[in-house]
């Protein structure tokens, strides 16, 4: 186990460097790079304030050491990433790290709830569908999963706001923010209810796609496993169908779902960018979106790097979990 861990940790070093390299390429697109700046100036009017952009150029140059040769610049960037020193935001001159630390808990809260719900609902649905393979229920469920999977989340968000957010239809759910104004001062239970109420729509939008995907995957895995010889053996020795499915089949079908967790993370973050900006939720996604809109490079860099690192950690975690759960995988 130790050797495996060590090997896996060594393996992520080139990946880490690669991530820093890609984010480094983005800085090269940023102002300070004269070519990009020219494009920037001609492309949009609001940045035409010359002193402002001059100041930004100087700031960027100093921040990323753009006056130095490229390899040195890259090494400096790597050093900054590993010390989590992402500089200050152009927008309000606050430390990027502080801004992110403020927003991260909200996005994590949303995504943890959403991932939890995805697994909680999808696995029973997938198993149910698989055990009734080729019946009408199974076909309908499969079709439902399929359509849910193909529904663009931003459309669903806008439709839900239209239906429940107080236009011509119903006015039942809040569509703005994650709490009512002043809710922080409320006692715990009303605060929690208010928060839950606010999260219904955004969580729905963040969840249904992953739910559909995972249900389909659970169903497919179950159908695959059910064909195995050991399932026939289990049935032949007279175990109840329930025991066969839950103990023998499901446990083996679960394995690939574990690794999926790591890959859900970047997709979830992409979803957060859209959903948080639609519902005005002050999380990482909205921060990222605003940063892109205002060309706030330090924030963009930091968000890209941090979410890549988080995903890498997730990847590593699920690899290890997989190795722990599946005795067939040799730890070398």
């Amino acid at each position, binding site marked *: 186990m130790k050797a495996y861990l060590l090997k896996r940790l060594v393996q992520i070093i*080139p*990946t880490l460097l*690669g*991530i820093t390299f*890609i984010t480094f390429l*983005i800085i090269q*697109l*940023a102002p300070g790079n004269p070519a*990009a700046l020219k*494009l*920037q100036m*001609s*492309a949009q009017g609001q940045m035409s304030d010359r002193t402002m952009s001059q100041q930004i150029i100087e700031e960027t140059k100093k921040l990323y050491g753009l006056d130095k040769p490229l390899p040195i610049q890259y090494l400096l960037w790597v050093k900054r990433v590993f010390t989590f020193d992402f500089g200050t935001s152009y927008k309000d001159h606050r430390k990027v790290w502080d801004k992110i630390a403020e927003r991260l808990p909200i996005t994590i809260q949303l995504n943890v709830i959403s991932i939890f719900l995805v697994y909680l609902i999808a696995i029973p649905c997938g198993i149910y569908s698989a055990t009734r393979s080729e019946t009408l229920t199974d076909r309908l469920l499969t*079709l439902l999963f*399929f*359509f849910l*999977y*193909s*529904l*663009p989340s*931003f*459309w669903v968000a*806008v*439709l839900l*706001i*239209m239906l429940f*957010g*107080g*236009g*011509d239809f119903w006015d039942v759910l809040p569509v703005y923010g994650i709490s009512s104004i002043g809710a922080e001062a409320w006692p715990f239970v009303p605060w929690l209810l208010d928060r839950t109420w606010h999260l219904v729509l955004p969580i729905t939008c963040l969840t249904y796609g992953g739910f559909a995907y995972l249900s389909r995957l659970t169903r497919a895995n179950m159908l695959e496993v059910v064909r195995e010889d050991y399932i026939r053996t289990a049935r032949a020795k007279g175990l109840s169908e329930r025991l066969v499915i839950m103990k023998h089949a499901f446990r083996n079908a679960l394995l690939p779902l574990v690794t999926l967790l790591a*890959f859900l993370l*970047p997709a979830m*973050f*992409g979803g957060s*960018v*859209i959903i948080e*900006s*639609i519902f005005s939720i002050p999380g990482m996604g909205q921060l*990222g*979106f605003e940063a*892109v*809109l205002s*060309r706030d490079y330090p924030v*963009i860099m930091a*968000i*890209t790097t941090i*979410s*890549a*690192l988080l*995903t*890498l950690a997730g*990847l590593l975690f699920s690899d290890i979990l997989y190795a722990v759960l599946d005795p067939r995988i040799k730890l070398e």
Partner: protein
Amino acid sequence: MEMTGKAPATTPRSYWQMVWHHFKKKRMALAGLWISLLFFLIATAAPLLANGRPLLLGHNGHWFWPVFSGADGIGPYTWKDLKKHAPFVYQSNIQGRGDFAIWPPVPYSPTEYNLLESLAAPTGQHWLGTDDSGRDVLSRMIYGSRISLSVGFVAVGIALVIGILLGALAGYFGRWIDHLISRIIEILLTIPTFFLVIAIIAFLPPSIYNIMVVIGLTGWTGVARFVRAEFLKLKQLDFVMASRALGASHARIIFLHMLPNAMAPVLVSAVFGIAGAILTESSLSFLGFGVPPPTPSWGDILSQSRDYIEFAWWLTVFPGFAIFLSITAYNLVGEGLRDAMDPKLFQ
């Protein structure tokens, strides 16, 4: 195609005939194929379906095809004026002059605005309503299909070229090349792709070509993984050994001998890739990073709808449904192909 259709009892011969044989048995997959063909036709024939100029105008005994000529009017007519006198798809004897006009089914160009009719709900005139500048939503959606499909196809084309090349190199040569390419794939997997795409798009001048290229450049990892896996399997097979023994060059073996045998998973991921690229493009347009105005795109109409969400349901429902339908169609085709190509079914 015709063979299997006429004589279902005969077993199909070639690999692709077998795939088609299995594919057409799935009704949903076929439906997906028809819907994607329909979208393709709509996109191709957009100027004939929605246009602010008449298709055909008979004036003084001469026939004119205004859709294909750039003029703003002919003889006594400007097109806007003509539309008032000839409001129907076919109108004869306009103003008693003996002239006639045939209009496209949607007699509005996607950019032609009329502030007096802004935000009108669907009517007989504007079947899917109008947007905030009074532009016809149906016309904009018809032209929007061109953006979605062209971004989908070109982006996937770019992704295929990169993915096939890198996947083949990694699978064929193995060793350090494989390690290097696998690391690159892993890196791209960890970076939040959608955020990367909007960040890059925001830095570049707005244009449809940048969108195609960026989606293509960030979307090749799936193809590369499939091709790599196929090549790892294929290179163990005798025919590869045989071509090598005959002195075929690496390029010849990779592209002429191995690649045709690895096309099945490539095709499947390409079809899914089109759905993904359409989704990414419409998300970009929805967030305001899409094709520059006034070019219409589905995501752009949907993003407008947010300002009038209290009442303008037609701006939300129709373009969103078009996005959903096209994504679903390609996903259905992809799924049908994947099942049809599953060797387990070829017993």
